[in-house]
């Protein structure tokens, strides 16, 4: 099965390596992404008793999302009454924040700048019926907005919850790894803006090498839970054939809203499902014909 792809001899696979251990949750990447790609706001809100994460999720208009993983009661997640009421504090009535406690609690926060994974086996790319989603010469997955007709099939076909249909636009939208900037030799806007280089951009092979060395350094320093999500796996362990944008994590993947295993649902299911459907179709056709012939001969 071949993909719709752009080929160029001098291009190589490019990707992101997002190191969550140095992310400070500043959201500069979100802002840079919105600015460069001219994306509207999704209308973030602070919810009392909810998360400090005002973005919530990746969507058709949000292509970078800094996920706040709040570990307030180690492993048990945040209880609603443990969160100060930011809305009331800002309005100057009611609760005040204990600054010392809040600073101490920074230890219990993990941030992760989530983005399209640019999978080797991309579910969205397999699903797209119009050919709007293509593989570029940098082996990234890019959606052509002038082709997309908003059928919405890529949305449930993505095992990572990345691509979504923008309601006011009608078309699907997701990270392009700044395809336009790459063509001019610029790094993507989010990586450029990241003040701690938590988001690193570069040729895929070099990134994997740096990531492996980073994990080794963390292990040597006693951070034994550090691991790579989406790269350096053994072939049978790979996520969707390997991720072009991979992560260094310290908690279980589900804490970041990531699946423990992933594959393009099309490549996984379409053949068995079609065989079952065709078998049933033949049975049904034979059954209908048999009923008619039997009634006729009666």
């Amino acid at each position, binding site marked *: 099965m071949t993909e719709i792809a752009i080929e160029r001899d001098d291009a190589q696979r490019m990707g992101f390596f997002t190191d969550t251990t140095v992310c400070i949750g500043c959201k500069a990447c979100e802002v840079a992404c919105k600015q460069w790609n001219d994306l509207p706001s999704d209308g973030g809100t602070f919810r009392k008793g909810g998360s400090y994460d005002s973005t919530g999720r990746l969507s058709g208009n949000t292509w970078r999302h800094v996920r706040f993983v709040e570990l307030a009661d180690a492993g048990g997640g945040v209880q609603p009454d443990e969160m100060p009421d930011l809305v009331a504090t800002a309005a100057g009535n009611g609760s005040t924040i204990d600054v010392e406690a809040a600073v101490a609690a920074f230890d219990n926060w993990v941030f992760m700048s989530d983005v399209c994974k640019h999978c080797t086996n991309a579910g969205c790319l397999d699903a797209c019926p119009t050919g709007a989603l293509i593989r570029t010469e940098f082996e990234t997955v890019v959606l052509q907005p002038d082709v997309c007709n908003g059928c919405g099939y890529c949305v449930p076909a993505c095992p990572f919850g990345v691509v979504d249909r923008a309601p006011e636009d009608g078309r699907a939208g997701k990270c392009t790894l700044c395809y336009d900037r790459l063509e001019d030799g610029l790094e993507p806007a989010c990586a450029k803006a990241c003040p701690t280089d938590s988001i690193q951009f570069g040729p895929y092979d070099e990134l994997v090498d740096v990531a492996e060395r980073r994990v080794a350094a963390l292990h040597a320093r006693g951070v034994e839970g550090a*691991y*790579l999500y989406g790269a350096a796996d053994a072939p049978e362990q790979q996520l969707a054939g390997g991720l072009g944008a991979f992560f260094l994590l310290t908690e279980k993947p589900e804490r970041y809203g990531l699946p423990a295993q992933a594959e393009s649902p099309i490549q996984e299911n379409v053949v068995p499902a079609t065989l079952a*459907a065709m078998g049933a179709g033949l049975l049904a056709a034979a059954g209908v014909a048999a009923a008619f012939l039997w009634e006729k001969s009666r």
Partner: protein
Amino acid sequence: MSREFRPAIGTPASPDFGERSGEKVDLHIGQWKDGRWSYLFGDDTEYRTPPTQVPDIEAIREAAREAREGELPDVVQGPVINAPVWTWEVPLYFWFGGIAAGSSFVALACDLAGDEDSARVARNVALAALMPSPPLLILDLGRPERFYNMLRIFKPRSPMSLGAWALSAFGGLAAAAVGADLLGRRREAKLLGGANAIVGGYLGSYTGVLLASTAVPVWGRSRLFLGPIFVSTAAATGAAATRLALVATGLPVGHPTRRALGTVETAAMSAELILSVINERRLGPLASGLEHGRPGKLFKAAKWAVRAGLGLRFARKRGGPGVHHVASLLYLAAGLMFRYAWVGAGRVSARDDRAVAEMHRAETHGT
């Protein structure tokens, strides 16, 4: 020196717009130099192990295995996947498309059994049921005016691409078959109808394959059942619709075609009910979408409508033929409710973060 803001591509509205100008812009750096590690991650920092050391790849893989295998953590901080965006048009299309496909089976069977008049009616039903389908699908698009892009490419691996082509082929064949009937060309109508039954086999089942080929737990984990369930619904609703149409055109009680259609609709609906119940039991917690909320209620109502129809079918001897018409209507209603329940269940299931995470954990256990 003034800064240069010229884009790397030609001037808009000029003949070379959209082509590379060949000139490098000011910011062009040829290589991703600044992406190639900032001072923070230079060899003089402790960010990573130095290039002289070889990192232990097995230890790195083992750390990933440890995090990704075993039990699900207590907290799943979703959303893991995005919920499908399809609205009411899609299940309604599934229902109409199923009726069209089922009627094309019936038309072929009528021809095989030598009942040409009923075959003609069945072909009319197939065309009539197909007519609302393209408008419904176009309405559901985010950009309806670009519907023609569905036929921009032929992509065998995408069920939606194949479905769009199958729908077009089915529409053309169904219209041609009805046209041949109108012109009185029986032989051509039979041939076109036969060809349409083959396309109908795909049209009636691909919708199940389409839903199964997603990351939504309740759909993806029903991959071997969705196709057969959708085919059963198609056969049952197609037979029920054709049966009612034939009755309306005056087919007498006890006519073999009428009896055969009664058998087909009942058998297909029973198959659908049995498959649905087995699948629901098999899915366990992943079936949450079919059990809760509005889709859960619809699913339950659909199952009861089938049971009521089956009951009426066997009580028919006492109630006369009218009771059987009620059964046909119940099957049609059950088919419609099943369609809405299945599509709605996907939304509920996709938002059930625990179910989504659990599905992928189960994969790492090899089950």
